[in-house]
Each structure stands twice: as C-alpha cells, then as structure tokens.
C-alpha cells in the first residue's frame, strides 16, 4: 500500500474514534458526517495522476503521522496572534483548531448587525437549520472537503441579516495550536449573506507551533440577491505547516463577491476556490498573491462557473517564486450553454526570482455560448533589467532595487484590499516576506 492509501486509512480510523466519542447526536448532522466519510473513503488522498492534482505532491503530507488536534481555548498565544486592526475596524473572533471561541466579544449581539456564532451551538439549538446549511459542500469533487465534513463538529457561522450594512469587518483568526507532535484540524466557516446585506470578512490563518501540522479548512459562502461580500484570506502559517483550503461560493442574482487570497507561508498551501454564478447580474472579483520559497509549494486552483447569462468574473493571480520554490496556478472558467453576455477575464502573472524556482500555470477557458467576451493571459518572467538598471542609476543598490520592484509587483493586489487599515498593517508583513526571497 502506498503512503497516500495509508494516510487515508489513518484518517478514516480517526474518524471512527471521533464519531464514537461524539455519542448520541441529532441524526441529521451525523448523516452529513457519514456522507463525508464515505466520499473521502472513495476518493482518498488524490495522487498526481489526477488532472487537478498533477502539480501537487501530497507525499510529504501523507507521511505525517497526524493525530487529531485537541483545542485549548485558553491558549495565550492565540489571543495576541492575528493582525491587530483595532476595535473600530474589525470585530475579532477565533477558531482554535476548529473550535469557536469568541474573543473580546463573547456574546453574540444581534442588534450589532452581523451575527457570528459557533456551529456547535447552532447544531444543538437548531439542528435542522444546521443540517440545511451544512449539506451543500461539494464532497464528491473535493476529497479534503469530504474529510473536513467527516470531522464536522464546531466552526463559525457568520450571518449578515437582510439589508444590513456593518461598517466593521469581521476578523476570524483561524489558529492551529502548538503540539509536540503533528496534529490536524478541520476548521469550518459558513457565511450566509442575506439579500442586500454587506459584509467584510477576514480569515486570518496561522499556526502557533514550529513543527509540522495540517489545517484542512472549508469555507462556504452563500450570497443572496444583491448581497455584497468582501472576503480576505490571509495564510501566514509557518514553514512546516500544511494548509489545504476549499472556498465554495454560491452567488444569487445581482450579488457581488470579492476575494483576496494572500498565501504567504506554509510548506504546502493548496487553495481550491470555486464560485458559482447562479443568478443574473452577479459579479465576482478574485484576487490572489502567492509566495513560494525554498522547498515550499503555493498551489491555487480556481473555478468560476458562469451558469446564467449577464454575469461577470474578473480574476487576477500573481505569483512570486523564490529560489527552490514552486508555484501553481490553475484557473478554470466555464461558460455554460445559454450563459450569454458573459464577461470573463482571467490573468496569472508570475515572477521567478531564483534558481530552481518553478511555476506551472494552466489558465483554462471552457466556453459553450457565443455572445461572450472571455480572455485569459498568463506570463512568466523576471524583474525587468531596465527597471533594475534605472533604479541603480538613481543610487539604489541592486538588492534594494529588486526589493522595490518585487513589492511593486505585489502592490497591485494589495492596493485593492477592502479596508485601508488592513492594507497598512499588511504591507510590512508582505514586505518582510518578500525581502527574504531575493535571489542574486
């Protein structure tokens, strides 16, 4: 048996133990969990023979002897971790190893606007509602979403009620705890934006330990008519941590969604972002910045499904790959038959900064309607020699010049971040990451 199959069986054995520990439970949620386990058993850990995983080697992940994480809500590290944006900018909550812990604001106050609560509580108080919200995960296409579903326990539910416009963003710090041995957690975030609501959500992923570990996250968003959601995903895990994240978005008529994914750390970061444009006039704006360095892999997969006419999608992903790093971009835009008047654009720009840096880019278009405007582009290159020369002629040394140009490359993504405070607090973080990347 190969490492992938062994790892699959280990996860399934853990699942049996986990389900037994939970004991008696509302049948609805237990059934969802079982479906997840079955779907994961069927698919296992995907091998590189599968088209969507051909550039992602899960061998190193499979070799980890992962045990289930045991959340410690009093962890002192978590309280101080995460970006500090200030109370007036963002309300902050924490998922520690997938367990919901309200930080600073322990009570869920409805009149405040956007509601944030633990999924475990929802499961107890309104099992039917919980089951309805949790049963849309695409577990048959995404083995790791299936695995997450099998371990469904707690998580965060973010609900923006009808017509609400909350000035303050929601910051959700999703932390993996520090353990002496490798552990896996399965954080889950559910976002429901009701008609005409407006929500800004920051998912701040990090880990506390220096050793290897694995975060297997699932985030689902449902945007009702005319809802506006701005999502920012920060991935700042340390060098030995694995992160696999599925973000599944469903957009109704006239809704607007934007997503910024900043993948700055981790041994392997794999993002699957899937957007379904299911109502006319829906608009999606996807932005990504990924950084890979010696021995690390940043792997981004996006899928935009234009199911109905008159929708727009705009996609821009930028990769910065340092010496010995590897970046992957796979964008897939599908225009269904009859989805006329679609406007879809997809761009992937990559910078290779050192020896043995590798980038694999697959921008794909699948178009089945004729009255559309679709385009994609992908480039791979280096810092412009003339720009470097120019800066040096202005008395900036070479490494300084490289740093300026690399930051400028990243700036296009950062400049579009939704909240100014977020931009200012992230810029030094990104700059520090990029400074470590410069080759010669």
């Amino acid at each position, binding site marked *: 048996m190969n490492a992938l199959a062994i790892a699959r069986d280990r996860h399934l054995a853990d699942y049996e133990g986990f389900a037994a520990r939970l004991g008696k439970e509302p049948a609805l949620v237990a059934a969802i969990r079982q479906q997840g386990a079955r779907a994961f058993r069927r698919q296992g850990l995907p091998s590189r023979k599968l*088209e969507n995983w051909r550039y992602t080697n899960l061998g190193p992940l499979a070799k980890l002897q992962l045990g289930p994480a045991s959340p410690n809500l009093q962890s002192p590290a978590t309280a101080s971790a995460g970006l500090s944006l200030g109370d007036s900018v963002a309300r902050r909550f924490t998922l520690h190893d997938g367990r919901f812990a309200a930080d600073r604001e322990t009570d869920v106050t409805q009149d405040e606007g956007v509601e944030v609560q633990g999924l475990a509580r929802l499961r107890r108080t309104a099992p039917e509602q919980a089951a309805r919200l949790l049963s849309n995960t695409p577990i048959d296409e995404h083995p790791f979403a299936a695995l997450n579903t099998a371990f469904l326990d707690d998580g965060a539910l973010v609900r923006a009620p009808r017509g609400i416009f909350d000035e303050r963003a929601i910051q959700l710090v999703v932390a993996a705890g520090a353990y002496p041995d490798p552990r896996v957690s399965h954080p889950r975030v559910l976002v429901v934006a009701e008609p005409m609501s407006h929500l800004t959500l920051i998912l701040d992923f990090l880990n506390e330990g220096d050793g290897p570990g694995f975060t297997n996250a699932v985030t689902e968003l449902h945007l009702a008519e005319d809802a506006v959601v701005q999502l920012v995903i920060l991935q700042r895990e340390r060098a030995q941590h694995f992160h696999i994240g599925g973000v599944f978005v469903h957009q109704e008529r006239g809704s607007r969604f934007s997503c910024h994914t900043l993948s700055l750390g981790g041994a392997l970061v794999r993002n699957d972002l899937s957007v379904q444009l299911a109502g006319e006039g829906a608009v999606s704006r996807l932005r990504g910045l990924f950084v890979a360095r010696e021995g690390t892999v940043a792997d981004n997969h996006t899928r935009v499904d234009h199911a109905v006419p008159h929708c727009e999608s705009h996609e821009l992903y930028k990769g910065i*790959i340092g010496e010995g790093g590897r970046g992957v971009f796979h964008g897939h835009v599908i225009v269904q*038959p*009859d989805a*006329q008047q679609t406007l879809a654009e997809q761009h992937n720009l*990559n910078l*290779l*900064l*050192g*020896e*043995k*840096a*590798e*980038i*694999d*880019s*697959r*921008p*794909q*278009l*699948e*178009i*089945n*309607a*004729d*009255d*559309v*405007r*679709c*385009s*994609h*582009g*992908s*480039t*791979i*290159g*280096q810092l412009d020699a003339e720009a470097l020369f120019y800066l040096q002629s202005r008395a900036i040394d070479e490494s300084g010049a490289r740093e300026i140009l690399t930051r400028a490359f990243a700036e296009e993504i950062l400049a579009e971040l939704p909240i100014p405070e977020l931009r200012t607090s992230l810029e030094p973080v990104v700059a520090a990451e990029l400074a470590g990347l410069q*080759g010669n």
Partner: protein
Amino acid sequence: MSDPQNSEIRGLLDREYAYGFVTDVDEDRIPAGLDEDVVRLISRKKDEPQWLLDWRLKAFNRFLQMLDEETEPTWAKVDYPAIDYQAISYYSAPKPKAELESLGEVDPELLRTYEKLGIPISEQKRLSGVAVDAVFDSVSVATTYKEELEKQGIIFCSFSEAVQRCPEIIQKYLGSVVPYSDNFFATLNSAVFSDGSFAYIPKGVRCPMELSTYFRINAAGTGQFERTLLIADEGSYVSYLEGCTAPMRDENQLHAAVVELVALDDAEIKYSTVQNWYPGDKDGVGGIYNFVTKRGACRGRRSKISWTQVETGSAITWKYPSCILQGDDSVGAFYSVAMTNHRQQADTGTKMLHIGKNTRSTIVSKGISAGHGEQSYRGLVRIGRGAENARNHSQCDSLLLGDRAGAHTFPYLETLNPSAIVEHEATTSKIGEDQLFYCMQRGLSEEDAVSLIVNGFCKEVLRELPMEFAVEAQNLLGLSLEGSVG
C-alpha cells in the same frame, strides 16, 4: 447578428463535401482484424528487412498491452463511441496492373482521381513546380520529380521504397522522435503502418521545390496508417506540404498517422498541412477520426521546425504537432487554424519542449467553431531546468459562430528555469456586430463580410502557408463556413 431564416444562407447550409466521391479500382486488401499475422503480412507485402518486422512486432505487443490496460486516451474533450480495432482492415492497396516504370503506367483511374482532387501528379502538370507523393489508401501510388530532386541528392519517395533504398537512414531515425511506445495511436501505427512519405535533404541543400504528399482514403472499412519521416541534414532547408481527402461514407474511418521530423544543425523544416478529411454530414454521421501524432526534433544548434496546419475536415481531430527544442538556439513554431462546423470536434494544439539554451517558440492558434462544433486548444509549453533564456509566446484566439458551438482553451505552462519568459494569451468572442455592420455598410453582403472577417482573423496563420496552399486554405475556410452564418 443575422437572420438564420435568410434563404440564401439556408441554401448554403446543405452544401456538400466536394471530395466525397469514390474511385472504382480493384483493391488488394486483407480481411478486417488485427493480430500478429496481419503485422507479418503487411511487413511481407512490403518485403521488409527483419529489423523492421521486429520493430513492428514490439509495437504490436505493446499495443496489446495498452488495450489490456485500457490506455486509449480519454482526456481529450472529444466524444465518440469506442472503436473496434478488430473491425478495421489494416491494409488496402489498389491492385497494380503491372510493375510501374513511369507515371504513364499508373492506373488511369487513379490519375483521374488525383486530377479531380486538383493534385498534379501527371507529368503534364509539372509546371506547377511541386513534387508530389500520392498516397492512396495504404500505399504510395506515384511520386513526381524524383529524378530532378535526386540530382541534388535529395531522396523523396514512398516510405516502402525508402526502406529498400536507404535502410540505414530509416533504421537510424525511425522511432527516434516518436518511439513505438509513445502513445496509444502511435503504437498502433508503429505496428501496422503501411506506407507514407520519406524525404532526406542532404547537407547544405536548399530543396528547390515544395515537397508534397497527398493522402487519399478510398476503400471502405479500412483505416489509414501512414508514417512520414523527414530528415533535414546540416544546413538544409525543406518546405513540405500535406493534403488529405476521403469519400463520404456514413461509417467512421480511423486515420492514425505518425509524422517524425528531424532537423540537424542549422537545418530548417517547414511543414504545412491542409487537412480536409470528410467531416461527416451535418448530423454528425460518418467522417474520419483523425488521431495523429506529429513531432519534430530540433536536434541541431540553430535548427528550426515550423508546423502550419489548417484543419477543416475530420469528424474528430486529435492532433498535437510538437517540437522538441534540443539544440541550443533552436526555434519551434506552431501556426494553426482549426474550423469545426456541424457536429465536428477538434482537440488540437502543440507541445513545445524547451531543452536547449536560448530556444524560442511561437504558438498562434486560431479556432473557429460554428453550428454544434466543439473545439479545444490544448498545449504544453515546458521550459526545462537547463533551458537558459528560453522564450515562448502563445496566442490562442477563438471565434464562435452560433450559440451551440463550444470553444475551449487548455494551456499548460511549466517553467523550471527562472530566466525564461513565457507569455500566453487567449480571447474568445463572436464576430463583432460593429465589424459586420461596417463591412455591410460598405456594400458587402453579410456572407462576404463574415468571410472577410474570418479570413482576417486567420491571416497570421494563413500567411505562413506556401502560396498554392494559402489559396486552397482560404477557399476551404470559406466552404466550411458557408451555412454557419446566423
């Protein structure tokens, strides 16, 4: 953008494939089925040396293994019922009346066939200045201008003849670019290939005329499995053209060819194809399955291979002419226009494998999809670890005519060297209303306006074609398009 009820356009919708006739000749064919005896029989008919038979048998065994492992490729975005490889006759040749001494002795029926197709194989037409090797079903029936070419040391003949004349060259290069185990269809071809063209251009020779092969499938229930091998020795140049047609039948016929090109130091090969196999009728009945493996190796420094293809025929096209850029400073190019109408499906593209330093490649792919046509560009650009300063630019545009047509783009860009510059861009749209309006208000009919715009869309590719072919290709595009406007 237009009224689909327009009677003029409607009338054109039913326009038929012009080359769909059948030639009535006696055939020498072997019964349908594939086993080791068939492979031996083909080899015997060709009077082949033992090493070639052994090579075929190796391929045959590998093919059996592939059938067992079910490795027939399914990744392409094409849809067809499973092929029964036992139902195909693997060899069919027009019966020779007698040993051929000159073209005058070629079966007049065959000559008439090529005349109808507009292919100059009779000596009278030598003014056209193209040397032609005509392949009819499984064998080559005639090659023109041989003597003249031989004066310069150029060998241009049928593959079977080359096996007899210069076995050492064949043995050296056969399978060196597309190995017998390369892929499902190439392996089948390696086992049962019957004929094809061979050309060798000696050192420093610039081939004085275009070389051309014209493939014709005539017999029913057969497949065509030809193999082309082209070698351009140091400092030589050759431009090679390939054309194909087949009768209209309501069965699907398999065409699984292999083309291997080798360019040594400073050599240049320009390979052009106008593919017009029978595409099936408008409901998708019949037509050729064109499953072809084409690959060129730029072995030498500063060598250059360019593929130009105009794909208007075939029910299904599965074809990826590729370049292996081994030599330093070598150059690869791929120019393609693919047109799918009615129920045609095409999954085509290229692979550019950069291995040597300072290698460059260009990809220009234009897809036009009309009716229920499905069209995919699938291409790989791979910059190897040692390919310093490699450069690639790809441009893949699709034009959609009709709201049931599909156009898909699947590029793969793999870059392992940080000094590479790789660019890919693609657009998909329909003909702009404003463009049409402009043309029409200048007095063009809608049909002419569309044709003008489509020709403009394809221009970058068409101008790469040799003169004679460019004219033919433009007419073909016009023909294939008619009836799809609206």
